[in-house]
């Protein structure tokens, strides 16, 4: 009984962290069709921002939930103005340019923070369930991911800004004819996407030690979650994060963490081979 509870929490946690890791990329790729290979580095920046802010005496939760998204969002804004906006519609070129950006960020972080691992301790204590110890921070991540998904859904479906954004992504010329500036809307969307990446990086930072290259650990997972999710933003994100999270945890429990990771990647390859349009390209069509 206790064990099944622990496993359920671990699976939920795996799904939640995949949702967190991929949310920013899903906004940028799913809506704008821009592949941001610097996504992992945005997360890394979020982590470093949190650690720096905490070092300066800011409350951990303020640093994670407010400062990191804002700072990384601003960095994203600068990146969009300088690089990405010249490359809209050129998928491969964007991919390469953002890859270059990710290297630039790694280089900058190495020069500023050095090549050593830094970290902060998890702000929430763990507790015992029967014979097992559960990290309380896992619950925090599950809650943050749930709130994030609900908020995204609410903004995109319920608000005027969400409607305009979705409309612009579908037909930029019509939106322009109706008097909205696609240029500005793209800019705002990229800001939101980067802010989400920053948030994810900040929230996950206490769990892993940060090094300048730690973005690389996230990018592949985020990438395959979003791509396997397919065209629908939130339905795709949830369905692929759930499938991969479950596969990952089942194999982790059955064999070992490394095999869990490998199983996740193999599942991604198989899934993409069977459904090249992603899960929502076949099921849940037309959902948001």
């Amino acid at each position, binding site marked *: 009984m206790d064990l099944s509870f622990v496993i359920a929490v671990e699976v939920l946690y795996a799904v939640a962290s995949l949702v967190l890791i991929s949310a920013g990329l899903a906004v940028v790729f799913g809506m704008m069709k821009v592949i941001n290979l610097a996504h992992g580095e945005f997360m890394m920046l979020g982590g470093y921002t949190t650690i720096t802010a905490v070092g300066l005496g800011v409350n951990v939760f303020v640093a994670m939930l407010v400062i990191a998204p804002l700072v990384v969002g601003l960095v994203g804004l600068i990146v969009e103005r300088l690089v990405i906006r010249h490359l809209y519609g050129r998928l491969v070129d964007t991919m390469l*340019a953002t890859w270059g950006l990710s*290297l630039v960020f790694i280089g900058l972080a*190495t020069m500023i923070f050095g090549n050593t691992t830094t970290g902060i301790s998890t702000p929430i204590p763990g507790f015992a369930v029967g014979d097992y110890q559960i990290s309380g921070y896992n619950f925090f991540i599950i809650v943050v991911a749930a709130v994030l998904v609900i908020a995204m859904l609410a903004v995109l479906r319920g608000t005027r800004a969400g409607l305009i954004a979705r409309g612009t992504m579908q037909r930029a010329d019509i939106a322009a004819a109706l008097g909205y500036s696609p240029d500005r809307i793209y800019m705002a969307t990229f800001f939101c996407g980067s802010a989400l990446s920053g948030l994810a990086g900040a929230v996950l930072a206490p769990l892993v030690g940060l090094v300048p290259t730690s973005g690389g650990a996230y*990018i592949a997972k985020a990438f395959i979650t979003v791509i396997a999710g397919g065209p629908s933003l939130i339905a795709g994100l949830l369905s692929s994060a759930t499938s991969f999270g479950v596969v990952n945890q089942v194999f982790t429990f059955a064999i070992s963490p490394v095999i869990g990771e490998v199983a996740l990647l193999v599942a991604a390859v198989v899934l993409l081979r069977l459904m090249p349009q992603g899960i929502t390209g076949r099921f849940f069509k037309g959902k948001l």
Partner: protein
Amino acid sequence: MERSLGKEIIATLIVSALLIWLLPMVIATYTLTVLVIYGMLGLSLGLIWGFGGILCFGQAAFFGLGAYTYAIAAINLGESTVPMLLAVLVPLIFAAVLGALMFYGRLTDVYLGVITLVVTLILFKFVNSTAGPQYVIGNARLGGYNGIPGFQTLNVPGNPDAYIWGDPYFYFCAVALVIVFLLVTWLLRSSFGRVAIGIRENETRMALMGYDVAARKTVLFATGAAIAGLAGALFANWGEIVTPGLFSLGQSAEIIIWCIVGGLGTRLGPVLGAAGLAYLKFVLGQQSLIDNTLITGLILVLFVLFLPKGLVPAVSALWKASFGRARRRPLARQRRKARHG
């Protein structure tokens, strides 16, 4: 056509012979060897990306596979001829299977990139976690993140004690690169190469003309992988150790940057891009003021933004614009004459 191919082969041979003779006077052969090997690796991606339109994010997978195959086989066999062949064959077969899986599934651009990237990651994660004593192939321990050191390096075929190393090894690698380069030239001049370029330009059109697009892409992909595998084996011999770093994303990224900087759709571009950037990295590695990765990244961003065609096409366009005029004018005059009688 035949005559120009002959001319090109002779020109390539003369230029490369000159380079092989002159370069060791400027740069140490130990460094040159690795530049040559990277050139071959760049050529392997330049072939499938520049001429087949297949953007492979995981060329490092084949490079690493070649290196590991060589190391494992060399430990088991204690002689280098068969391991060299295996190092070409294993990536070739692996890529053929992977390519068939992808191309018959009609996966294109982004999805192709993701799958190749993920496969590289799988290999990296797997090899990185094989530190335990239970991971053994024959006599060779896989060694996890420590890699495999101490295998038999290149020797004269049939004589395991006659090692090829130092200056002779540089000449061996350089000649190998020239041979591979000529084979690629020949392949691209053949009807197979023309169809490949056709597929790059418009896949649907080539499919409607009756070509089996998936089969041809698979063959091209596997050819590129074989070249990368050979480069991997040569690299293993040069470094005398193979590590999981060969499979890393960083390695994959670098190969793509070489191709972009050198120029896609040319044979020479990726080779020069690889050797040039690797040398730049070597020079930059000797200072600690500015981080190496930062500069590589900046180069990539700037090239994508301002020179998306790469150096070699840009320089050749400049060359044609400044020196090609003399030849174009008489042609224009002729044309005018023809028109006005």
